[in-house]
């Protein structure tokens, strides 16, 4: 009995230590796997062009320089214009999308009406349409109606693309708000719409924030539709701008990685500021992604 008592804690402690070491090693290698591609691009972007083309490669830059950023980003009006385009599209789409989907979410969360089940099913089923499945008709239709190669077509397409997911997300938030609050407002003389604007909408803030983050992350990182529906540099978005650099003859990896790192920064900043809303929004949007 006593021997068992003496041995067991030792074996258990040994196993616990081994488990701990194993876990640390596992997490460390996973972190390396996640971070190394990003880190390598950041380091590349900080090297001078001749150093980028060295083999064997240097790990840390010999002379740290912002030359690539100056040439490819800060003093490159075209790339700045792509960033500006993308920002405008994000803001306008977010406004349209949030307004439309807040109303729609309220409607499907609070009312059961004729065809409501069918309409909801049809709307949510579009979440399952992958971009690549409708990119060809969108291209053809946008040429026909004269919206091809404009910022407007991207706003419309991104709006329709993200609205169902947002309705789904916000519907959950509306259901979480006690209906008694609206009833109290109604008794106090509010109209239905008034009760929605004055009582429900302010309480949806967390949901609207998660929705805004979802819109931002998805549009900022979108490539396929931005590539297919826009041709000229005037309306080009940032991901397509990066791709255009990549397909140039004789890729300049220093400049290219500088552009890629720049495109990552806004998303990282928003993530740092709004982690909770970010994960919430990205998880909801993962269906669409």
């Amino acid at each position, binding site marked *: 009995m006593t021997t068992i008592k003496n041995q067991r804690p030792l074996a258990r402690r040994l196993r616990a230590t081994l488990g701990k070491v194993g*876990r640390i090693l596992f*997490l460390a290698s*996973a*972190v390396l796997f*996640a971070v190394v*591609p*990003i880190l*390598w*691009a950041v380091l590349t972007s900080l090297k001078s062009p001749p150093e980028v*083309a*060295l*083999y064997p*490669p240097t790990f840390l830059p010999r002379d740290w320089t912002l030359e690539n950023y100056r040439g490819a980003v800060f003093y490159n009006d075209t790339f700045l214009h792509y960033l500006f385009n993308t920002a405008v599209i994000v803001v306008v789409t977010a406004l349209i999308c949030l307004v*439309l*989907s807040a109303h*729609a979410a*309220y*409607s499907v969360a*609070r*009312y059961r*009406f004729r065809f*409501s089940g069918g*309409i909801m099913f049809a*709307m949510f089923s*579009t979440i399952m349409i*992958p*971009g*690549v*499945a*409708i*990119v*060809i*008709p*969108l291209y*053809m*239709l946008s040429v026909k109606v004269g919206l091809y190669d404009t910022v407007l077509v991207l706003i*419309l*397409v991104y709006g*329709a*693309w993200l*609205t*169902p997911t947002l309705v789904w997300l916000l519907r959950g938030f509306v259901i979480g708000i006690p209906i008694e609050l609206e*009833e109290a407002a109604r008794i106090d003389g509010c109209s239905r719409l008034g009760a929605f604007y004055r009582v429900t909408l302010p309480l949806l803030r967390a949901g609207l924030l998660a929705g805004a983050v979802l819109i931002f*992350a998805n549009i*900022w*990182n979108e*490539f*396929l539709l931005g590539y*297919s529906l826009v041709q000229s540099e005037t309306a080009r978005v940032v*991901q397509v701008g*990066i*791709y255009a650099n990549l397909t140039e003859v004789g890729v300049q990896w220093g400049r*290219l*990685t500088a552009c890629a790192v720049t*495109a990552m920064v806004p998303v990282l900043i928003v*993530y740092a500021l709004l*982690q909770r809303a970010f*994960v919430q929004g990205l998880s909801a949007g*993962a269906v669409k*992604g």
Partner: protein
Amino acid sequence: MTLIDLHDGDELMMVDRPRRRRIAAFPYLMLAPAFLLIAGVSFLPIGYAIVQSFFRSSNLNLGRLVGWQNYGDFFLTRNGLGAVANSLIFVAGTLAIAVPLGFALALALNRPMPLRGLIRTLLILPWLVSNLVGALLWGWLGNPQYGLAPYVLEKIGVGFPNIITDPGAAMASVVVASAWAATPLVMVFVLAALQTVPIDLIEAARIDGASPWQRFWSITLPLVRNTTMVALVLTSLHAFKSVEIVLVMTGGGPNGATETMALKVFKEAFTLLRLGVGSAGAVAIFLINVMFTMAFVRVLRTEHGA
């Protein structure tokens, strides 16, 4: 009285007809703008794609009716069946790495430890990077001429095949890039589910003498299985429709060895300008998505019923 009762209330209809009509219209009016946008920009195109898939397009017009020929062309010419196989390998490979890895990371992170928040953030980073940039990062890391990966691996004695010219290595590299991007989603989903597992339950099992393995197998796993399934399905759908990773890293090469269905749709439409053939592939992708989702919903439902 709830709002739902209000609009169903027969007594209201008797008293005040016009008012009742306004009440009935209210939910429709709230829904209409969103619905119209979705109808115009989602329903219409998918319908258009289905119609176009039976016509041979010319100059952006519908063109002439060709029946199933576009489908035949998509699947049977220019390595069509190869693209189907490549899509399968790409999706299966992504799942085979991302799901176990994401799951294991969630388990490892689901206990207090120093720097936990930082580690979690670093592991989430790939989720924040666009697929296009992610592909570019991996392409640069494995670049046969200047890349860090070939250099390091050759230094430690492991050979590194050329990811542009070697078919197997090309497929492996796009799968790794795809799994890299997909792992955080699995991790975040499973971690969220793990945090809902009641600690008392695990504690009670421990006191009753259940080994860690038994506790995991009989308590934790059943409670997070549905979430894991959801993450698995999202990951497959996402990988299946992904164009960017293959487009950027290999362009479908060498010699079609990494050309997936999604990339083939893209190329048929925007490189070869065969919009009808591309539409046929697009419709096929859409239908496979729908069937996969429906099968999955059914599985989840029967599990809930059981």
